[in-house]
């Protein structure tokens, strides 16, 4: 493996510290990792979605990764699609096919400006990660000859055995009347170079367009495709892999999965305020709710959003809200109110790099401690951290079940990466019954038998019959159910009370619901934790949330090259998966905790919850705005766990075990 040229180029503000020797990269030849790059607003996302779907329909497993700036028009953006015959769990390392479309909204090049020459970035920004033997197609209609010459592209291509095909995609599109069709032309060239059938691409175009526009696009698709055969002298070996699916597949993002889990969990009320990346879940539900009897509210701020969800739930709807870190900060108050009034509630928190506005379109796992503890007083909430599309669906459904069964706010914490990445899932995975029950809510008939005080007020927070620490609830409008809900400490009928015995009873009961929930999770459900690698392995890698995929792949590679490593991806953050994580840690000699933040929050949580293992765990941390690639974890393991005497070459940080 050759390492691509590094260094400090004009216009760059950061120093690339990816040095030589990427270790242990055993990249498969049987995979395509297609990167389409351009500017924001150039239709990169929709082009790539269709291409991913076409690959899926051809029988391949696909996984997508989006990289984009917080900007509407212009700015370097790309989508990567990894496709192979067998399951792909992460973006992989590097990539092997670049389609550089050009940034039609690029700012004009300025010597002094920090952004340098944006016009060339769709090509220049992507070269470092292109694998040896890779293919480059760039739009010479948008990328100027001079700019390309400055990149020393020819020399680098020779060094790395890259195969470069400049095509005037823009010119081709213009000939057919519409410049935006250069994306379609690029797809046609890609398909031609990879020997890929056009059938699925044509079908998808026919689904999305009609009339003259469809005609023109089909025409340009074919012209570009045939151009490869007729005009190109091809030198590359890369071809599209082939595969087959046993059952029908659907291409979904983590946001789709969360929204669908909510629908199947019976959610029919959502309130929110836009914020990247949470907006996706909010949008998907807002668009589906009118057809399925739900109500969606876009409101003035996130305090209102969460307060609306509390109000709707109080009155009988299965309700949710959510945001990203900045908006979730505003939700601390209503979250605490839901804990105190025992109002069922589901919140989702889609992390992006912080603090403050941070990096709005970049993933990070830095809000864990915040979500676990924000709001005054001792917290009583449930927090799940799904790591994959399937887990996002399962755990959102489960969140609604737990929230309504135990009358407790339940939070799904995920991130920009899981939110936006697409992966194929078996359609039959979703073929199950919905769960629209209201859990421990009484009917009017049941209320007749329930405890009331002498004046007929319902003992909503009574002392008797609180199975699993839950006191059953009524809803406004029900006969015989009236009570007071309050954020103050309160008596059995909900009136403000500062009686010490009552306080201790109510507080203890609310907190101990977590023990009851832990018991149910351990005994009645499949584990939310995911395990991989050999059960008897000596070394452990522990991760959580969306870093799972890259860790799975790294563990596989380490085992392939003779290391004895296994992994666990933890989802139950609160109540913590105590027994499972203890068993895992006891079974290994050492463990490395992999997470995308700078202060090892999850490792801290493990130590806090288990009270030991501090000297067994090291950390591999990444917080540069990009998710882990498997090779970085492999290298981290080697440097860290195998105690090799060198620094990691990737932009990651290793933190030693406590006491080291």
């Amino acid at each position, binding site marked *: 493996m050759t390492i691509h040229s590094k260094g400090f180029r004009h216009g760059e503000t950061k120093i690339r510290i990816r040095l030589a020797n990427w270790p242990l990269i055993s990249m498969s030849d049987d995979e395509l990792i297609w990167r389409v790059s351009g500017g924001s607003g150039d239709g990169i996302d929709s082009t790539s979605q269709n291409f991913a779907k076409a690959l899926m329909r051809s029988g391949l497993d696909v996984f997508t990764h989006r990289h984009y700036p917080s900007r509407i028009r212009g700015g370097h953006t790309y989508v990567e699609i990894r496709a192979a015959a067998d399951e792909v769990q992460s973006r992989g390392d590097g990539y092997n096919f670049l389609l550089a479309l050009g940034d039609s909204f690029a700012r004009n090049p300025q010597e002094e400006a920090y952004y340098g020459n944006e016009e060339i970035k769709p090509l220049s920004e992507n070269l470092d990660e292109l694998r040896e033997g890779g293919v480059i197609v760039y739009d010479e209609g948008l990328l100027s000859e001079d700019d390309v010459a400055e990149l020393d592209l020819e020399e680098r291509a020779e060094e790395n055995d890259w195969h470069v095909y400049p095509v005037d995609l823009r010119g081709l599109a213009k000939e057919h009347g519409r410049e935006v069709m250069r994306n379609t032309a690029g797809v046609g060239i890609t398909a031609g170079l990879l020997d890929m059938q056009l059938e699925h691409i044509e079908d998808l175009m026919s689904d999305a367009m009609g009339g003259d526009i469809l005609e023109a696009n089909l025409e340009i698709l074919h012209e570009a495709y045939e151009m490869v055969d007729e005009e190109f002298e091809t030198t590359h070996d890369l071809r599209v892999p082939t595969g087959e699916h046993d059952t029908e597949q659907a291409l979904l993002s983590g946001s789709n999965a969360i929204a669908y889990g909510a629908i199947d969990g019976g959610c029919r009320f959502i309130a929110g305020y836009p914020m990247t990346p949470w907006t996706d879940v909010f949008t998907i539900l807002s668009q589906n709710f009118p057809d399925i009897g739900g109500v969606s509210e876009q409101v003035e701020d996130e305090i209102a959003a969460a307060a609306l969800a509390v109000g709707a739930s*109080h009155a*009988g709807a299965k309700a949710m809200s959510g945001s990203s870190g900045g908006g979730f900060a505003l939700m601390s108050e209503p979250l605490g109110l839901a804990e105190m009034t025992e109002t069922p509630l589901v919140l989702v928190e889609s992390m992006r790099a912080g603090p403050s506005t941070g990096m709005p379109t970049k993933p990070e796992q830095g809000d864990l401690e915040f979500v676990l503890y924000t709001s005054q007083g001792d917290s009583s909430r449930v927090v799940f951290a799904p790591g994959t599309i399937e887990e996002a669906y399962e755990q959102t459904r489960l969140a609604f079940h737990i929230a309504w069964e135990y009358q407790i706010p339940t939070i799904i914490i995920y991130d920009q990466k899981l939110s936006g990445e697409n992966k194929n899932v078996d359609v039959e995975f979703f073929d199950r019954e919905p769960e629209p029950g209201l859990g421990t809510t009484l*009917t009017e008939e049941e209320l007749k038998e329930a405890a009331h005080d*002498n004046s007929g007020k319902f003992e909503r927070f009574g002392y008797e019959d609180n199975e699993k620490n839950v006191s059953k609830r009524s*809803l406004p409008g029900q006969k015989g159910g009236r009570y*007071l809900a309050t954020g103050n400490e309160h008596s059995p009928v909900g009136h403000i009370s500062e009686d010490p015995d009552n306080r201790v009873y109510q507080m203890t009961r609310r907190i101990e619901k977590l023990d009851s929930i832990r018991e149910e999770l351990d005994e009645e459900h499949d584990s939310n934790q995911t395990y991989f690698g050999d059960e008897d392995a000596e070394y452990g890698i522990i991760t959580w949330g969306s870093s799972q995929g890259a860790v799975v792949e790294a563990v596989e590679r380490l085992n392939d090259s003779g290391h004895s490593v296994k992994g666990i991806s933890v989802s139950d953050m609160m109540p913590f998966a105590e027994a499972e994580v203890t068993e895992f840690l006891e079974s290994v000699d050492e463990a490395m905790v992999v997470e995308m933040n700078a202060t090892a929050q999850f490792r801290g949580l493990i130590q806090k919850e288990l009270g030991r293992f501090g000297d067994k765990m090291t950390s591999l941390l990444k917080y540069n705005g990009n998710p882990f690639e498997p090779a970085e974890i492999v290298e981290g393991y080697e440097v860290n766990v195998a105690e090799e005497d060198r620094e990691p070459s990737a932009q990651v940080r290793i933190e030693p075990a406590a006491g080291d």
Partner: protein
Amino acid sequence: MSAFNAIGEEREIDRDEYTPGVEPQPTWCPGCGDFGVLKSLKQALPEVGKTPEEVLTVTGIGCSGKLNSYLDTYGFHTIHGRSLPVARAAKLANPELEVIAAGGDGDGYGIGGNHFIHTARENHDMTYIVFNNEIFGLTKGQTSPTSPKGHKSKTQPSGSAKSPLRPLSMGLNAGATYVARTAAVNPNQAKEIIKEAIEHDGFAHVDFLTQCPTWNKDARQYVPYVDVQESDDYEFDVNDRAEAAEMMRETEDVLNEGTVLTGRYYVDDESPSYTEEKKAVGEMPDQPVAERYFDEDAEWERSYDLLERHT
């Protein structure tokens, strides 16, 4: 069949039903204007035919927030400034409920000001009573958003440099379709205004002058009051937005000069409520969301049937 049979129940309603057995006596100071709000609600609710269990009273924090401790309906004593988002969502989840929100001037015009503007703008079919005592009471007498300019308190030792905000004009500008001011010193008018507010099909904003004898003015300082409908000195059309705005401006100008003007300021019976608007654009089901969970015949949609777009 409804799962909420307290709603729409036809029967004789005794005023005493609204007094909670568990906490019959309020803890407000003697002479507090808050008693006036409680009394007018206890009178108005039976007169408009509402039983305790079809009413949800949602309050904020402060002396006023204790209202639902002393008014025996379904109650939600929320957090400071947040009564409105909680209340309006309850209305959306179950539009058949009678929803009344209440809080103080700091609660509604200060910390919850954003929610006040937007809830009024959306014209939810609910009543919002602001206990306006021109002071922060429960925290012991600090200057509030309606305290007059120059108001001295422990936190404004040199006198407030800010002009008070104009609650009625704010309500009108934001989109409230019923705006009135009444006073604890005028119980008959208060009861009538509360009745009208409850029966109004839209967002009814009642600025209720509740004297705070402990930290601010006592009852005498709100007397004499003038009912702008009854007085010959004032003539305007409550259905006319421009005339209403002018009357509000004058009322707010003279309050701190010793003239207490009260009455109905703006009534718009034409505009549809938010629920109606939302139904009209197809974003609100006919059957209340809350009812559906109890409906044994309900057929729940599932995501499996939405997957075609992803294949």
